[in-house]
């Protein structure tokens, strides 16, 4: 595989991982905010949230790894100035959002263990915040990619 193809694959995987993370939170946000749909039980929402958390953290690892790969593709030609400032802002967003996401997962663990519907509303807020946060990172990534 040529270096160019490798970089394209790395970017594709990066985008797909973000699609999983952002798409999942955008689906769970209304699902938890509105209450369980008629044909679903509380257990279905719990299972969906637990599955999403597993996927989210796998996607986070993929995003960080491929993000580093994308930086490596620039080599010594990495832009500075405004581009560097936007990149620093994106990194700051990542470092702030990761511990917040850990709190969300800890809440999902409690949701599964005993608290049940009690935590549906706080989790809906958490998934809304996750969706906004990841959407913001996508906007910053677009600025970095296209100026």
């Amino acid at each position, binding site marked *: 595989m040529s270096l160019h193809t*490798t970089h394209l694959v*790395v970017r594709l995987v990066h985008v797909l991982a973000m699609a999983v993370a952002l798409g999942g939170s955008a689906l769970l946000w209304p699902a938890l905010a509105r209450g369980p749909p008629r044909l679903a039980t509380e*257990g279905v929402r*719990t299972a969906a949230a*637990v599955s999403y*958390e*597993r996927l989210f*953290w*796998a996607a*986070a*690892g993929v*995003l*960080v*790894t491929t*993000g*580093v*790969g994308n*930086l*490596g*593709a*620039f*080599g*010594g*030609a*990495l832009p*500075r100035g405004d581009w*560097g400032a936007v*990149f*620093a802002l994106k*990194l*700051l967003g*990542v*470092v702030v959002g*990761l*511990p917040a*996401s*850990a*709190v969300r*997962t*800890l*809440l*999902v*663990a*409690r949701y*599964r*263990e*005993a*608290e*049940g519907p*009690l*935590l549906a*509303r*706080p989790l809906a807020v958490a998934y809304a915040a996750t969706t906004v946060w990841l959407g913001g990172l996508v906007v910053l990534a677009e600025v970095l990619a296209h100026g």
Partner: protein
Amino acid sequence: MAERTADDERATTGDRSGVTDARETPGSDAHGDDPPPTVELRAWALASFHVATLVAVGVGLLHAGGLVGDLLSGLGTLPGVALYLLLWGLTWRTNRRWLLAHGPPGRGAVRPALTWGAVTGVGFLLGALVALAVALEPADLVVLVIFAGVGAPVAAVVGAAVGGVFALVDAALCSFADAVVGAARESA
């Protein structure tokens, strides 16, 4: 909802009764490969959080120093992914043991986190060196062994420091999550 096991309950409540010393000793595995599901979820999340944050902070520091492009361009895609997976795998394994022994992170779990952090640090160094050894000539292996001997104590100290810091962060995050649960109970 899955039926809860006694270990799941202990992990939830932080109850230390019945937790044997063997579980706290690196190298022992009282649970084998079948930990309670919520411990597994916490270990998965916290290990991923630790490694992703560590890499993001590292890249941020390199970026601030203007070194990120030059250094990362020298690291190939596959070696980079392999190093990340190695660190994540070790961190997941040690976090799982840590959570099985101590339940949700609290201030009391910081001291054992130093030990598990040191285990992770040394394991990462040795794993990386073993991978490097495959690409070296036999004559160069002596240098690698010397490097491992000198580097292992340094890796242990660095790993313990990082493990301790993340244990404190985890304890704070758990306290925050507990506060959210408490507020939800009050408003119900």
